[in-house]
């Protein structure tokens, strides 16, 4: 079991109850959609997995370790197991494609020869070979998201968390990104994707966890969406 949560609740200091009593299991190699209206708790759930926030109640385990009881010095190690893809890409504008991806390896202290080889390999995989020295502003939205995905997977994480990765992309480009995520998933990486895109979820035929007002209202495989 890769991710386990037990009766997790999150109450923010302003009184907003973002999650209540969420108990979930996500297996290694799964592809999971997180769905639900805005404010249902998807983002909070992701933040809890990343240990950006602590739950008010309950237990969370990622790769067998308690995220709640984790010492702050161990948080970086947890995060090296998780790659994150954002709706707005969050690329560094003053760095090239290569540098944006290499950055993720640099800051965890990888040696330069390894960085060069791995970044090239990853960029080839996401289909950006030849665009290494372009800047983000010179790329299309889909290409920028590929850079974001490359950055998320370059350190070989166990889990990729994608927060509305197709939210800013058109229909065709969205499917290219979904194909890429499916390919990454096929190689064994667990994918947790928060999304509003019902057509994508319906056609992917993967597990869907539906949140509403902070609670899990359905958890099933396939097109049966509430």
């Amino acid at each position, binding site marked *: 079991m890769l991710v386990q949560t037990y009766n997790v609740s999150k109450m923010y200091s302003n009184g907003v109850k973002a999650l209540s009593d969420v108990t979930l299991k996500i297996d290694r190699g799964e592809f999971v959609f997180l769905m639900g209206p805005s404010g249902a708790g998807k983002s909070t759930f992701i933040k809890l997995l*990343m240990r950006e926030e602590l739950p008010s109640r309950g237990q969370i385990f990622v790769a067998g370790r308690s995220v709640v009881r984790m010492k702050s010095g161990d948080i970086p190690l*947890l995060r090296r197991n998780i790659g994150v893809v954002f709706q707005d890409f969050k690329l560094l504008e003053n760095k090239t494609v290569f540098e944006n991806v290499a*950055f993720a390896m640099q*800051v*965890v202290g990888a040696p*330069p020869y390894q960085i060069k080889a791995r970044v090239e390999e990853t960029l080839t995989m996401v289909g950006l070979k030849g665009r290494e020295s372009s800047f983000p502003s010179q790329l299309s939205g889909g290409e920028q998201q590929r850079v974001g995905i490359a950055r998320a997977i370059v350190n070989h994480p166990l889990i990729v968390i994608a927060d509305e990765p197709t939210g800013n992309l058109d229909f065709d480009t969205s499917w290219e990104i979904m194909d890429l995520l499916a390919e990454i998933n096929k190689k064994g990486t667990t994918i947790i994707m928060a999304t509003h895109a019902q057509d994508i979820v319906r056609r992917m035929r993967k597990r869907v966890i539906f949140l509403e007002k902070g609670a899990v209202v359905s958890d099933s495989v396939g097109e049966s969406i509430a």
Partner: protein
Amino acid sequence: MRWSTLKYFFREARTSLARNRLLSLATATTVSICVFILGLAILLYMNSGEVIHKLESDVEIVAFLDKDLSPRERDQLQDLLTHNPQVLSVTFVPRDQALKSLEKKLGDREYALMETLEGNNPLPDSFKIKARDPQKVASLAATIGKLEGISKLRYGQDLVRKLFTATRWIRIISLFIVVFLGMAAVFLVATTIRLTIFSRRKEIYIMKLVGATNRFIQAPFFLEGMALAAAGTFFAIIFLACGYYYLIDNVKPALAFLPLITDNRVLLELFLSLAGAGIGLGIIGTFISVNKFLDV
């Protein structure tokens, strides 16, 4: 630590210094002024200490002797004074010599004085006594005044008291100025680093998410703060050293009585401490901002 990591830290620090060029300059200048004035205050303090020390050691007690004291009694008295542990030295001044030095002090009124006295010397014999500890002149004087054979005492009581008051005030005021300027410098370094943190918050967020350690994220900021402070400190010390050596070379010959500190070892020690203090300001400033604004 990897060489490539170190290179990365230096590159990041350099980039952000170049990005906030004007603020970096302002910060380095403030650190510079602060360290300069700190150095100035310390030099002033050290040198005034030196002057005071010299004046203090000049403070002496003049003990006038009874006129009918026999030479034997006089010798006994001198012996007694010499053996007092608080006394550094005792010099006998015969009345003739006292008159001569008085004449000398009075200068061109000499003749009038001699005429008025008509060859009679009104001055008694006296001892010039130096105290071992200039700060205890008053208590020593009190002891000596009670001795048999001594008619009158005189010592620079007021001068001594004024000197000590002056030293204390110099100490307090320079401490105050230095603390105030130090706080200003720390504040400016903190502001610079804060701006750097804000201008790089996206990078910092990404670094956090991909699992960079806190120390890795913080290191370039400390490097930047230290570089700012070091640059400022460097110029302050250069100016201070040039100015002081110029002063020594040009003022010392003219005012030979002024006991300026010229010992190069003492000065080098001072400049090194200033360098340490300046860089310390940089580290403290960075520390404040990193803790307050770098949410890692």
